[in-house]
């Protein structure tokens, strides 16, 4: 929650939209605010950004009952045949992960300011995601978070899977963009 998921999605759209056909599904908890933000920022044409409602359970909507998200993704695929659909979860907690019935790859974003012990604690999101993004590392010195230690802890629990340290709002996210590009067959 507040770790920079929507900002990351916006940055990915800006970086990829010229070379790939991109669409987005957002899972806001009780508004269409994330979708509205992405539309306002004009990162993609409005019709390529869809918001689903999750009935107070963003967790359920991406893992246990993926129906609403499948509907949204299928509609986007029918309309635009995109190379990549980014599904942004509603802000949830460290145990929130996507079903692989819905996604091919998942990125888990944690906030440096949320505590530098988060990677050490692990959990399904931190340990299992295909890419872990530790965001807002520029805030590390301000909140007393040791980002090097976070990266080392992540490496220990992630069994060789990659981790990227980012400051989405102030720095380019080249590492994340390259990773996403490498996951899309058409761009390889």
């Amino acid at each position, binding site marked *: 929650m507040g770790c920079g998921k929507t900002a990351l999605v916006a940055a990915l759209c800006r970086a990829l939209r010229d070379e790939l056909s991109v669409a987005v599904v957002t899972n806001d908890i*009780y508004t269409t605010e994330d979708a509205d933000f992405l539309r306002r920022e004009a990162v993609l044409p409005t019709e390529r950004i869809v918001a689903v409602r999750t*009935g107070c359970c963003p967790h359920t909507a991406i893992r246990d*009952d993926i129906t*609403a998200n499948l509907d949204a993704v299928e509609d986007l695929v029918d309309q635009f045949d995109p190379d990549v659909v980014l599904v942004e979860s509603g802000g949830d907690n460290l145990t929130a992960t996507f079903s692989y019935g819905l996604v091919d790859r998942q990125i888990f974003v944690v906030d440096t300011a949320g505590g530098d012990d988060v990677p050490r604690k692990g959990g399904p999101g931190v340990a299992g995601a295909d890419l872990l993004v530790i965001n807002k590392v520029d805030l590390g010195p301000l909140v007393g978070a040791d980002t090097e230690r976070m990266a080392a802890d992540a490496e220990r629990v992630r069994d060789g899977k990659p981790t990227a340290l980012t400051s989405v709002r102030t720095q380019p996210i080249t590492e994340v963009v390259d990773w996403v590009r490498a996951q899309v067959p058409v761009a390889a």
Partner: protein
Amino acid sequence: MSGLWLLADSRLPTGGHAHSGGIEAAVRRGLVSAPDDVAGWLGGRVPTAGLVTAAPSAAACALAAAAPAPARALSARGEPSDALVDRTFPSRTGVSERGEESAALAGRGFPSCGELRSPDWARWDAAISARTPVAALREVSRTQGRAMLRTVRSAWPDAAIDGLGARPHQALVLGVATAAANGSPHDAAALAVHHLVGQVCSAAVRLLGLDPLALAGVHARALDEHRDVIDRAADAGTDAAALDDPDHLPSATTPLPEVLAVLHARSEGALFAS
């Protein structure tokens, strides 16, 4: 029987968790705030919206049970084997719970095995639309129908879904799924009411922070109090199917939930899709 348990389970992934059975709009206007209010809301909705969805569920179950095997099942296996035929007409035995053996069904006008035909689902679909006055609720019904269709395809590949289209009303899909799960038309009607009540009760827990045990009680009492609605829906649906005439489906509603559904669909900041 086990298939019916699956259909009755709110954890079956068919998207139901994102719908509140209309109660979110009532909660947001302060019309519902306690378990008794939820029971009152159900007292208005079950005999109207519940009846109107339960009856075509029962009809679809009866029609699906009498339908020929899906074309793909036949073409994949050549001539239908006895085993396939047995599986394709499950509710001919499944209705015994209601004391209606297949002979009795035939007596109510159902075709015998020799004269099977595919149901003309479009007519039944149109009849449900005609009984769902506002476009917002027709859309909700079709969204949930599409979702349930996806689940049914995975769970019961031989279900009689051919001709239902991509976005049928949920009541039809539920009826077809019930038949595929060896359930009776009465089971289909009961499931339709159970799902309506379940959506309302679980949404009330999440929206109002009510005691989930109290709402489990509301759920159980609602099913008990509205047994007559389930019975009427099952009878009306079975009769309509026997006559092959969707005009015999019941219709009933009240204005407030219909208006609230329209306002909900247009509202900002709603938690539930309906």
